[in-house]
């Protein structure tokens, strides 16, 4: 299998293409400027998430992941996942299917019905790994035009980029540094805040099942973030992004004062490269224009 560091099958998942297509644009365009080619995975479905299918039957999760992986296999490209959940479950399935012959056979019996086959020929990477490990901080620094001097960012890694670490192996699960390094490559300071690695409160079906609880967990997370008075929150997961973006609005609707701008990493990267805000960073419930004006000087 080609491990060509400049070619990836882009697995967009559900939230990015259908709720934050501006993030999708930011990924496509920044990657292209960094000399990385991303290719669409035609017909890719939901990863699927742990909260539903995995929670009722392992095989039902596995077959759907395997279908997605088989699409990338047919393109002979490694997968670049741009969502933590997608990364976690696709990589986990890939590992499981590579090592467990019995499960692989079961899965292939099912895939056979739709004319697909899982072979175990590719790897799954997270966007953060591609940026940090494959492209490299230096190249990213060189690609930017505008430096975010003086801006302070609260980095949120998100659970499924880090854990379970013995499967994902993307980062040191207790002291990750890649996203911080990427943020600092833009000239910002990545600030310390307590319980940085804790959950945003969205996952596992929580957002849907328990709107109250989800906001309470988010509120705790935000209180910790506020402690370091950042100018923005940066993440590389659309679901965490959504939780911070919509969640802050939810808290504001309850009369609470949370209004920290939230960015997906490539949105900031794109803005620093001079890409237009409208295409790459225009969809959010929590306003970001102030930040963009202050640090990029654009309206």
């Amino acid at each position, binding site marked *: 299998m080609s491990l060509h560091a400049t070619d990836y099958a882009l697995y967009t998942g*559900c939230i990015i293409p259908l709720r934050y297509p501006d993030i999708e644009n930011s990924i496509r365009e920044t990657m292209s400027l960094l000399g990385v080619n991303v290719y669409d995975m035609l017909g890719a479905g939901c990863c699927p998430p742990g909260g539903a299918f995995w929670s009722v039957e392992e095989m039902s999760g596995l077959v759907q992941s395997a279908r997605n992986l088989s699409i990338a296999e047919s393109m002979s490209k490694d997968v670049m996942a741009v969502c933590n959940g997608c990364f976690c479950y696709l990589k986990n399935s890939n590992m499981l299917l590579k090592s467990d012959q019995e499960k692989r056979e079961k899965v292939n019996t099912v895939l056979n019905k739709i004319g697909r086959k899982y072979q175990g020929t590719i790897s799954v990477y997270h966007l953060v790994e591609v940026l940090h490990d494959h492209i490299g901080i230096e190249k990213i620094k060189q690609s930017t035009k505008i430096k975010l001097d003086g801006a302070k960012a609260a980095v949120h890694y998100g659970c499924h980029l880090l854990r379970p670490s013995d499967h994902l192996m993307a980062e040191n699960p207790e002291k990750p540094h890649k996203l911080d390094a990427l943020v600092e490559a833009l000239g910002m300071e990545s600030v310390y805040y307590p319980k940085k690695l804790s959950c945003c409160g969205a996952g596992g079906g929580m957002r*849907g099942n328990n709107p109250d609880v989800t906001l309470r967990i988010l509120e705790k997370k935000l209180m910790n973030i506020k402690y370091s008075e950042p100018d923005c929150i940066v993440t590389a997961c659309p679901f965490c992004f959504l939780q911070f973006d919509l969640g802050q609005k939810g808290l504001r609707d309850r009369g609470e004062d949370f209004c920290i701008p939230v960015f997906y990493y490539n949105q900031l990267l794109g803005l620093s490269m001079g890409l237009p805000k409208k295409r790459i960073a225009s969809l959010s419930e929590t306003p970001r224009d102030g930040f963009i004006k202050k640090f990029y000087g654009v309206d």
Partner: protein
Amino acid sequence: MKIVLNNTNKELVNKVIEYGGKRVYECFQCGMCASGCPVASDTDHKIKRTMHQVLLGLDEQILDKKAIWLCTTCFMCLERCPQNAGPTEVVFALRRISAEKGIIPEAQIEVANNIYHLGHAVTVQKGIKLREKVDAPPLTTAGANKKYIHEIQKIVDSTHAGLLLKIRKDWKPKGDDVIACD
């Protein structure tokens, strides 16, 4: 209420092992899992207690109370458990057992139906409009074409998930809110 520890469900622990909680026996009740759990202080989901209840076979205490569905699957407990007892895996196993008993929350049903009927966890029409708004290229994923959705339906139909997640042919999405994704 006093709990009598005889005649509890001795099969529960074996079932949990079979359904993915392979190392549940390793738990020695240190509390590391519960101490870092993001939902512990706001919900009834007390993961250390759940581990213990599994070992004791107290199935009603776990399955009837639905607390296992409050886990955000953040894997913090699994990451830090000093015995590698895999508490999140035990939660998954318990959810699977609970789903077999027909106990499954609404959000799970909603997301599963979305995926089954639309190819994605969220509604597609709204997404297509948003894409136009930001000049995104046309959608190429499963949601773009019925043939892909049929593929997904076919493979889901060859598992038990349709039944367990109460997937209905006559289903209509409730709304455009994003309920779950990971």
